[in-house]
């Protein structure tokens, strides 16, 4: 069982990593190398596919098979890889611009099919590689090079986007929350079907302050809602606040001691609850983190290969029969 001994270091390609110092991507890279090492799969069984953007440099830094493709198309390339060889663990590394703007169509169809891709979307709410334009997740009012007076676009909430599409696994993590995000990635790695993980990630030059309150030691417990299946939606430093859902509307209640029964208990199999909770945003609500949805549904590749199981392989000696079809005739 040589595979059992693999460590995160074994999954490093030892190439110089070219992200800016302090970039949130370093932490995500370390977490993913650790998760890959822990899966019991050898290097050659991994294919890491990316598009274009800072996050998409990722494949060069892991010692697996990797394909740094073109802008927005990682999910489409990865779909071909997975369908051609369903034995492979296929990871897609993308960003908010790559995966939700130019690649939005491929993203939504990959999720619709429930093809077995592990999609990790690094959300820094900015186009970083092209040096600071507004992205589909840039928050309203944010000043960027293309929105000097503040962005007027309504942004996507990536996790809600995925939940809304019926994605069978949706989670949100944070670049500096190593324990929580590693646990999410581990579950994503074991999920059959499409797993969509949004990781909030800071970009030092262009969105440095973006997630600062979520990381502030003093504030973060009031800002983050850690979602766990079967547990009440409770947050706050003193764990004295909870989310109550009344008439399909979330509200915050304060309490002391044990959470009262009206505080919602999270159910990751409930799509309505997942949509409602994934959509909670600052400043009214804390930002939900964790696995927001996880259900088991046959994956695209399972369904495909199940369909053709009865047919099996076309044997070479059958080629002439196949070419002849039912209507052939003999000419002498």
């Amino acid at each position, binding site marked *: 069982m040589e595979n059992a001994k693999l460590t995160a270091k074994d999954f490093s390609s030892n190439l110089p990593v070219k992200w800016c110092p302090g970039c949130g991507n370093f932490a995500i890279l370390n977490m993913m190398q650790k998760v890959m090492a822990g899966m019991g799969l050898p290097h050659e069984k991994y294919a890491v596919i990316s598009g274009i953007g800072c996050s998409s440099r990722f494949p060069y830094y892991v010692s697996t098979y990797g394909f740094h493709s073109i802008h927005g198309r990682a999910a*489409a390339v990865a779909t*071909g890889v997975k369908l051609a060889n369903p034995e492979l663990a296929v990871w897609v590394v993308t960003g908010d611009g790559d995966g939700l703007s130019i690649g939005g169509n*491929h993203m939504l169809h990959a999720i619709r099919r429930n093809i077995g891709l592990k999609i990790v979307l690094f959300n820094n709410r900015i186009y970083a590689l092209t040096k600071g334009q507004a992205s589909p997740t840039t928050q309203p009012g944010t000043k960027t090079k293309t929105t000097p007076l503040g962005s007027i676009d309504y942004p996507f909430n990536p996790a809600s986007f995925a939940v809304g599409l019926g994605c069978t696994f949706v989670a949100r993590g944070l670049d500096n929350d190593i324990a929580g995000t590693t646990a999410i990635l581990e579950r994503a790695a074991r999920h059959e079907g499409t797993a969509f993980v949004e990781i909030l990630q800071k970009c030092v030059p262009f969105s440095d302050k973006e997630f600062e309150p979520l990381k502030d030691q003093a504030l973060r417990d009031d800002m983050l809602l850690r979602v766990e299946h079967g547990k009440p939606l409770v947050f706050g430093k003193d764990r004295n606040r909870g989310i109550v859902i009344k008439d399909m509307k979330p509200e915050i209640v304060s309490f002391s001691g044990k959470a009262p029964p009206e505080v919602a208990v999270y159910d990751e199999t409930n799509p309505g609850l997942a949509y409602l909770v994934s959509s909670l945003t600052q400043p009214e609500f804390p930002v939900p983190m964790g696995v927001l949805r996880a259900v088991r549904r046959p994956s695209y590749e399972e369904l*495909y290969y199940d369909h053709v199981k009865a*047919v099996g392989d076309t044997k070479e000696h059958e080629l002439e029969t196949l070419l002849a079809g039912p209507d*052939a005739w003999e000419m*002498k």
Partner: protein
Amino acid sequence: MTKPKSRNVNVSELSSVTVRFAGDSGDGIQLVGSRFANATAVAGNELSTLPDYPAEIRAPAGSLAGVSGFQISFGDESVLTPGNRPDVLVVMNPAALAVNLKSLEKGSIIVANSDAFVPAALEKAGYAANPLEDGTLDNYRVIAVPANTMTENTLKDSGLPKPQVLKCKNFYMLGILYWMYGLPLESTKEWIENKFKKAPEIAAANAKVLEAGYDYAETTEIFDARFQAKKSAVTPGKYRNLTGNEAAAYALITAAKLLKKKLYYGSYPITPASEILHTLAKHRSNDVVIFQAEDEIAAVCSTIGAAFAGELAATGTSGPGLSLKAEALGLGVIAELPMVIVDVQRGGPSTGLPTKTEQSDLLQAVYGRHGESPLVVLAASSPADCFHTTLEAARIAVKYMTPVVVLTNSYLSNGSEPFRIPKLSELPKFELPPRPGPGDYKPFMRDPETLARPWVWPGLKGYEHRIGGLEKQDVTGAISYDAENHERMTQLRAEKVRRVVKEIPQTRIYGQPEGELLVVGWGSTYGAITSAVSKARREGISVSSVHIRNIFPLPPDLGAAMRRFRKVLVPEENTGQLRMLLRSEYMVEPLGLNKVQGQPLNSDEVLEKIKEVLRGN
């Protein structure tokens, strides 16, 4: 059992016959056309077919826009095209007559369903009076058949509702045509039985109507002559009738088998390429993987993914789709992954004439990408040749690790001809670039002969590597922004594609190797050019022809071949795209015959141009 010839009528033998069926798009024209084609094949004829259908699935019934046609030419081995002008036009309604009459020579035969020539239908077709009766058709031999009435009479005891009964009338007309050409009914009856297996009463009704049509022609005195097309002297073997799209699909399955790999075909529906996807969908298996992508871009990107995963990867599309795939093909070129892209050309630009034929994507296929992005382009010359050319494309793709575009078009993809089913031993050998042991492997090391890099895929232990769209360092495959390395890699990619000339057989000249005029063609004009040149030569005209499959790179000996003639003529269904390529590659000045009407060039047009060019001497 073939019906005995009980009536003594004159039977003339013809070297070829052209029949066009025309009617409403709901009249089952394509169905009777393809059955008729099959019957001629079974009778031992060479054949070539061309369906011509409207872009609208169901244009208003009886309208001129809704006329669907199917033309077939059959006879001896001289049949290379679906024919120019039909000898017999079968019309199911007045609109079909109005649309097709102009393509008939005086004296040809019109078989019309006279029951459809009622005032409302006449008006829709723009006729003030019934052309079957008012003298409009005096110069033609008109056979008016009350097909609705006869079909209803035939099925009066069937218990089927009237609309169902009337649906059978196309088989009545087909039966008449079978009698006229002495064709056997069996294969069609078997087909009907199979097709309507789940509705035996419908099968019985269709078969009965088919026979009734045959008997009607046999006993009615209005049919005073029968014809027999000469049989073809073809290579013995097993044959089937294939359209170009089916042929391309079967070639891809065959190529994957020869490589002992899966076939992965990712495609997005587009006219007229969708039948490749449909054909492969029928044969989906553990190793024929088809994927209907969300768009053209996903189709080609997933194909690139499958090539990266180590399977035989292919996609198919038409002109607008090839445009959408252009960026990804650049990735295919720089990542040096093997794949086949079948472009079934249609009238463009934009939606253009989506169901009509053209040859206007040649320059897009050769040059239509950003950057220096050479890839291999081949063109198929006939429906059956779509098999051989697509197979060759796959062979070159994996040998040279390059995307290969196959140009076919609407005419080839929908047209059909007999295809001799090859024996496995007759198929070309496929070879992959050599792959060293994992210790010696570098992603961009090259086979010194072909310059192909090794094909290595996820799952192979010890070969883990990263590729992508960024420029890579020669040999090592590390990311490189080095100026000289970029130039070297650009040249290596170009030189690799140039070396594909080694795969091109010597240029075959039909006719004398030198003389007054060489006609150079490519793709779907093969039949028209060859028929025209052959006819001209029989008339004593000094003309030869060459038909090229290799569009990029071009055959190395083509320049010298052209220079042995005083003039070169390039007929093509565009405004002169191959001509431009030949001019820039060989510094020659060919003349053009250019038709951009959505309709194929025909041999009369080519022959006329040959004569015109030579008159100018």
